[in-house]
């Protein structure tokens, strides 16, 4: 006992200098890493703030020339042609047509897929099925655009409706719909699985079939999760650009006909960015006005989705 104690204390005395140094080094390293990680986190926050700042800053010159009221209610969008007109409604209509059409495609497929995965599929199939679906989300969007232009329009739409234009809203809506199916099915699957097993058992115990339990207990029980999934997918559909440029065209038109060429908010930004519009002109500043509009819409959708999702998390706790 005594010898061990004295040995430890003499060790402490001998090693005192180096141990202190080592400890100081460790502390410094910890502090450096802390600062480094903080800096990384700040980059993304700073980027977001900078984007918002630039959007607002650059759209001020635009809104000085064009009143926001005229911008939001005008029905003609011809900023690059004479006579110039700056009504954003045709672009908004294009975005609504594509995003709404995409939801019409994606919600039934996505929700059904999720119901199948969570309620019907055997365990092994669910385990490979979900990652497989999520691969869909990894396909470059330009590929979807090309698929719409070279397959969906000529092989499907034109066979059914020969008057379909080469660029059209319907083909864009269909591919954007396919694109957001994984978002919906994956989030809905999580929502369905959060419905307690005891509720399913209660349904089966009063002689419910699988279909009745799935659609009348699990689906309503997870409804706010489903809503949140749809809203997040909607935000993605609204922001989708490349596929829509390729498939829907560049013709700003206030129409609800899905077989005509249209232009969305995002597609217009591409058009100006790629063109030879000189900087610091009113034409150039239009993209910031349009960008701000787009930002406001997706932000609003995301905020609503987050609120809905939060409510959903409270239900079973």
């Amino acid at each position, binding site marked *: 006992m005594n010898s061990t104690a004295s040995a430890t204390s003499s060790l402490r005395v001998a090693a005192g200098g180096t141990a202190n140094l080592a400890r100081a080094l460790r502390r410094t390293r910890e502090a450096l890493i802390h600062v480094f990680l903080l800096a990384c986190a700040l980059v993304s926050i700073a980027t977001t703030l900078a984007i918002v700042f630039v959007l607002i800053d650059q759209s001020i010159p635009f809104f000085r020339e064009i009143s926001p009221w005229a911008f939001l209610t005008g029905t003609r969008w011809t900023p690059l042609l004479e006579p110039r007109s700056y009504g954003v409604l045709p672009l908004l209509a294009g975005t609504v047509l594509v995003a709404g059409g995409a939801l019409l495609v994606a919600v039934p497929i996505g929700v059904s897929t999720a119901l199948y995965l969570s309620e019907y599929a055997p365990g092994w199939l669910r385990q490979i099925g979900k990652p497989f679906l999520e691969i869909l989300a990894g396909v470059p969007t330009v590929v979807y655009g090309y698929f719409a232009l070279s397959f969906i329009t000529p092989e499907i739409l034109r066979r059914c409706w020969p008057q379909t234009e080469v660029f059209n809203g319907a083909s864009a809506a269909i591919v954007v719909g396919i694109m957001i199916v994984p978002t919906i099915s994956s989030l809905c699957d999580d929502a369905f699985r959060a419905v*307690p097993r*005891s509720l399913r*058992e*209660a349904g*089966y*115990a*009063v*002689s419910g079939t699988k279909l009745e339990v799935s659609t009348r207990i699990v689906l*309503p029980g997870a409804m706010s999760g489903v809503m949140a999934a749809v809203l997040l997918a909607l935000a993605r559909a609204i922001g989708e650009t490349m596929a829509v440029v390729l498939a829907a065209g560049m013709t700003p038109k206030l129409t609800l006909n899905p077989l005509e060429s249209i232009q969305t908010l995002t597609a217009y930004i591409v058009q100006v960015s790629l063109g030879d519009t000189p900087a610091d002109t009113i034409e150039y500043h239009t993209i910031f006005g349009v960008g701000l509009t787009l930002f406001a819409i997706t932000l609003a959708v995301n905020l609503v989705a987050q609120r809905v999702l939060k409510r959903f998390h409270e239900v079973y706790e």
Partner: protein
Amino acid sequence: MATEAQDLVAPLPPNTRGLDFTQALQTRSVAPATASAATSGPVVRTERLSIYYGNFCAVREVTLDVPLCQVTAIIGPSGCGKSTLLRAMNRMNDFIDGVRVSGRLLFNGQEVYGSVFDPVELRRRVGMVFQKPNPFPKSIFKNVAWGPAVNGYRGNLAELVEESLRKAALWEEVKDKLNKSALALSGGQQQRLCIARAIAMQPEVLLMDEPCSALDPIATARIEDLIDRLKTQYTVALVTHNMQQAARLSDRTAFMLMGELVEVDATSHLFTTPRDQRTQDYITGRFG
């Protein structure tokens, strides 16, 4: 609960923890097992029924009768397979991955497993009440009406709901808020609602899986009263880890241990003169 409190002050016999069932047996409202039930044959019968989770044998070759209009209690320590056995009787285990069943399960003499007997039809005739109250997140009315509605009930749903809630001794408490959410009810009320939901299907058998284990003593007493009254109309199989409850409520008691059925007998016999030493040890509190 009341009996337990009295047990604590009573002088304890040596070598036991003082569990005494005479009092519980005396509180019974109806005389046990009459001859009439025996003549009609069991409603549910298991024959050498074994249930496996993967390679684990949860229930081993159990042969047990659940006779008409009696309460059959299944007791035993946690993990003895009593819930698994109960959940086999309405094929509720089907939803668990990797469950395998061998042996026979007969419902009114008809083969249930490995036959054309539709599990959905079986569950219409064999209702179940679970350990934790599990009302649907819907209104009180819809909770009771859901089962009959999806099964195409043609009569007057409102009448059926009222009748079921009355039988479950809940009507007076909820009649003015049938459209309010069932989740707003207390735990005991929720469990009575779940019983009403099961009764609304007009089942022949009620399976109850520790229906009071999540409830306080007062709610427990009310559910016990209810079960006592229900047994005049329904055949009840009751899983419980509360031996006092089994003694108070049941006509027959089965004791299970590590997946095996050790002993089954009239409740008054099993708790006073058990034949098997393991039963004796369990009811006197030497283990479990």
